[in-house]
Structures are given as C-alpha cells and as structure tokens.
C-alpha cells in the first residue's frame, strides 16, 4: 500500500514488513517490546510527517476532533485523555 508521500513508499514498505512480522510473531504471542521496528519507524515518520505538512494535514488537530464512542463501544476516558496529551511522533 502506498504512502501519502511518494518518496516515502520505500521506507513505508520496509517498516510495514517489519511491523507485520512483529505483530504476528511477537505481539499476538504476548510480547509487547516493539523496539525491533523502531529505527525503521522513525525514518518512515520523518518522511511521512513532511508529506503531511505538504498536504496540509494537521495530525495534532485530528486528535481533538475524533469520534467519541458508539452504541456497542464506549472508549475509556483515560485512553482519550492520554492520546490528546501525547505529542505527534516525529
């Protein structure tokens, strides 16, 4: 799947491959240490954040403007609070 920034496609596909393997082999088996893909994530992020700016998408703005709950799922308040306090990873 492509990235919003054409020049990020290569970095994205390398990160995605790492994440998919980590998700199947580690996370679903109860291991929550995600440091193995961190270097790839950071270089992909550097690229994608620049592309978002170019497309005038403000990620921080999106956090305050998100769905709150549905009939079958009420998000826990603490999760919402944490995510709105957290700064964008770059």
């Amino acid at each position, binding site marked *: 799947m492509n990235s*919003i920034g054409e020049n990020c496609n290569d970095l994205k596909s390398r990160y995605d491959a790492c994440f998919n393997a980590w998700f199947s082999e580690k996370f679903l088996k109860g291991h929550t240490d*995600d440091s193995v893909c961190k270097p790839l994530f950071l270089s992909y*992020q550097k690229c994608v954040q620049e592309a978002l700016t170019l497309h005038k998408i403000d*990620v921080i703005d999106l956090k305050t*403007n998100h*769905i709150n709950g549905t009939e079958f799922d009420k*998000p826990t308040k603490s999760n919402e609070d944490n995510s709105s306090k*957290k700064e*964008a990873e770059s």
Partner: protein
Amino acid sequence: MKIWTSEHIFNHPWETVVQAAWRKYPNPMNTAVIGTDVVERDIKDGVLHSHRIVSSQWHFPKWVEKIIGVPKVVYASERSTVDAEGRQMTLKTTNVTFGTFLSVDEVLQYAPHPKDPAKTLLKQQATVSVEGVPLCRYMEDALTKNISFNANRGRQGLEWVINKINTEVKEIDHLLSQTKKSLDGITDTARKSMDELSASTQKIHF
C-alpha cells in the same frame, strides 16, 4: 444524522483476521483506498494504539459532487487499539476532508465469536451526518447506501487478504520443508563423505 449498523462472522480465528486487517489494502474488491500511513503508534498497558491517515478516492453520485465538490483524494483519520490478551481490535475512522458540514464516522470491532472462538465476529457502525448544505437528508441517504455497499466489499476484501496470508504461510511451510529436505540431503552427503573419509583413513592406518 443516519446510523447504520451491521454484523458479520468470519470463519477464521481472531488472530488471523486481525493480521489481515492491517494488510487489508490493497485488495481487488475495495479499490477506493489508495494509501495508508501510520502517523503515531505505541503500546500502553499491553494495548497497541495506532493512528493512521487513510487516503482514498470517493465516488459520489454526480448531483452530490455538484453540491459539495469532491476533491481527487479524500483523507480520513483512523485510530485503533489491539488488545492481544483480551482479543479485541477496534478501529474508529472519521473523515478529515469536508470538515464540518459532512462527517462520516465508522467503527469496526473484531472480537472472537462468543459461541465459537474459532470464528471472529465483526461489529460495524457508521454515522453519516450532513449539515448546512442543500438536500442534506438525501445526501445522508445516498452516503449511507454507499457505506453499506462498501462495507460488503470491505469484508470480501478482508477475506481475500486472509486467503493471501494463508497461501503465503503454506508457501513458507513448503519452502521450509524443501529447505529441510535439501539440508537433510547435504547432511546425508556430508555423513557419507565422512564415512568414506574415515574408511579411507582406516585403510591408511592398517
């Protein structure tokens, strides 16, 4: 405001379905999505939190396009949580493009089927709201129909990805067994050579 809900059962275990959910795009049934980007991801209390920007090309009826104007690419913000221990994945998506007068909020929840843990139950809900433009209600109806149609395509798309992953797993298994066979072959050859070597060494000694 229109609310649309639906449920679907996948005949695959939760672990398989959620792996496929991350790899849902691209798929041939659902070609509207042209890009996905993770913009934040971390683990809190064992739960994986992700924030993705989803880029897609929407196809509206012509009269809707005339009223609201449809850009080439529409962006949506998707927040998700995966709780591996509690076996639950929730994705919430809201549109970024179109701002305040049109909002499409979608929630998908994947959990093991309560009566059959080998199956996965998908609960899906979409809320469509159009405000402050002509023909609001008609537009909501048209968009809701669109969502219902796309949801069906989305499930077919996910089934397609699950099949692809299962085939990949089979191919890897096949590759591994082939590798094992050829390694066994090498070991056999090596053993034979060693036997021959020791036999010839013995000959030399005697």
